[in-house]
């Protein structure tokens, strides 16, 4: 099994006629993703890689069942497109676009809570479930193999780096999720961890974090509270990065001391989570955990 997206997940591509969207639609189809429709206002009736294009999400949803949508939409249009998908009942939306304005991201997250949807991203290469041959995004599929490791990462480039090392060491993956590199993202480490805990195929989880934000601390608290019993291994990039100086006092009042490398490492230690201080240690820690 995998989490979140499966071989029968029926996928919509919003903005399907753009050149990047066409290219990635082709790759996703080749990998095995069930792309059933595309949307591009004004291009209804066309086909892209054999996928029928509709003028609106509503039209596409009226014509066939759709479970998930992936957006290839410029930053300025992401809010409208994501809300459109969710308001038409789509429960999984992958937003690959980077540089989505904060206030737009906040509006998307509010709609997600209201409509009970799952958002992956923004600013993510997407997700891939190798056992299900399903990819929503544009990770380099040839590095991924089916197996027992669940991975959630804030960094796309580090995902490829680590997955290539896992695969080379014979450790395949159940599902790998780029949760997104932005300050506000939908699916967070804690939710990914819960889903991996419930997935019978996943035997261990890798979390690839970064300095800043509180996702690592939340994940550690979940593990410390006993909700996750599978082994978790982490790597956090930015050990030697200077702590960002905050403008004004408001940020510090809200987040306190969370977000620093010290706070993340301390939280992992309290939770008994294995921390790889260098990339090379991730595979070793996983191999020990899976013994």
């Amino acid at each position, binding site marked *: 099994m995998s989490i979140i997206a499966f071989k029968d997940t029926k996928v919509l591509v919003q903005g399907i006629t753009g050149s990047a969207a066409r290219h990635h639609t082709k790759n996703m189809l080749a990998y095995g993703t069930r792309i059933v429709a595309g949307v591009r206002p004004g291009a209804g009736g066309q086909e892209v890689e054999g996928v029928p294009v509709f003028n609106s999400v509503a039209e596409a949803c009226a014509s066939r069942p759709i479970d998930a949508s992936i957006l290839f939409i410029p*930053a*300025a249009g992401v809010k409208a497109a994501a809300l459109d998908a969710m308001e038409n009942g789509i429960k999984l939306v992958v937003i690959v676009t*980077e*540089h*989505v*304005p*904060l*206030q737009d*991201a*906040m*509006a998307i*997250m*509010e*709609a997600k809570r209201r409509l009970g949807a799952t958002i992956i991203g923004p600013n993510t290469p997407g997700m891939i479930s190798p056992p299900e041959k399903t990819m929503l995004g*544009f*990770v*380099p599929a040839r*590095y991924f193999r089916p197996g027992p490791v669940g991975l959630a*990462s*804030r*960094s*796309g*480039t*580090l*995902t*490829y*780096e680590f997955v*290539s090392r896992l695969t080379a060491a014979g450790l395949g993956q159940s599902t790998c999720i780029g949760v997104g*590199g932005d*300050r*506000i993202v939908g699916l967070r480490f804690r939710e990914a961890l819960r889903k991996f805990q419930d997935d019978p195929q996943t035997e261990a989880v890798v979390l*690839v974090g*970064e*300095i800043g*934000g*509180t996702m690592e601390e*939340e994940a550690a608290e979940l593990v410390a509270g006993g909700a996750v019993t599978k082994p978790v291994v982490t*790597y956090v*990039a*930015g*050990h*030697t*990065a200077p702590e960002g*100086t905050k*403008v*004004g*006092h*408001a*940020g*510090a*009042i*809200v*987040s*306190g001391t969370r977000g620093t490398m010290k706070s993340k490492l301390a939280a992992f230690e309290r939770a008994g989570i294995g921390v790889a201080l*260098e*990339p*090379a240690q991730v595979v070793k820690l996983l191999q020990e955990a899976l013994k």
Partner: protein
Amino acid sequence: MRIYEHEAKQLLRQAGVSVPGSELASTAAQAQEAAQRLGGPVVLKPQTMIKARGKAGLIAFADTPQEAGQAAGELLGREHAGEKIDTLLVEAKVGFDQELYLGITVDYTEGCPVFIASSEGGVEIESVAQEHPERVIKRSISPGQGLTKEQAGEIADFLCPPKDGAVDRSDELRRIIAALYGVYTKFDCEMLEVNPLVLAGGSFLALDATAAIDEDALFRQAEMVRPRGQSEAEFELEKDHRKRGWTFLRMEGDIGILSSGAGITMAILDLMRAGGGRPANFLDTAQMNRQGIYDAFHLFLDDPAIKTVLVNIFAGLNRCDDLALGIQDFMTEYRPSFPVVVRMVGNREDEGREILRQVGIEAIAGLEDSVTQVIKITESLS
């Protein structure tokens, strides 16, 4: 993108929040004239990105126009934390009894705006929040609904509890609270802060204001984009980087780093520092191609401090041979004085290696090995 105090105050004033009378001055004579026009004692505040100006002794008070001119002469041209003071806000000095704190920022964990207020504003607000959390009110705001009347009322009552016999100021406070949220959304702020808001002469005045605009929203806040604390050339360069989608931060070291993706670049910086190397920069770019990598090399070209450059390529979707051609283009055209170390794996790796050999570069496959190698070469050059 942080904006200056006087710009933030301008936004507040347009929204109906009172601020003290003020003028900008960039010479001592201008400051003196400004003080003359304002009449009475003034405060002189450098318009810089420097934090905690008061604590750094960069805020001056003057009772007469002559004193204002003199104080301005002492402040203007001073350098602090790498920034030169070239503009002062000359502002009428305001006496007050109580300092309130009002701020709006983003709760990144919950993904919503949060309004924060305290009746104990001033420079120590962070310790107040830590030691006496009950003296601070925080309200999460629904982005769809906005700040509700009830929330504004709650915050106003918290700041100025209604008392028998006292003047009821809650209506005015409520209006200011709502105006602040209006500015926050209208200008795509990631934070907006008034600290302090004071009661003077029967009405509230914003004595200081700080604001930062979300860089990702600048496409719809174009009128806010202008040089601040930087030369025209630096400003243009920053604009160019933004257009290309690059985040480039020059640091103190001597090893240039050309790698796309924030996560892997941070990991390289960590490995490099752990190995005793000194990275010269952080760089985050979108996926690279031949032209992009050629362009990015120019970041290091006219920088005399750069001794070596490390290129990291993990071609998962793009291709090693295409990127190697970009490196070849650059090396052939410029014959740079710095040695270039390339880590390269991914699609069409062998073809890419062959292209790099033609310009005398033997690509390395391991990330850690490439970092060790570039440190070794850099040390041998010192």
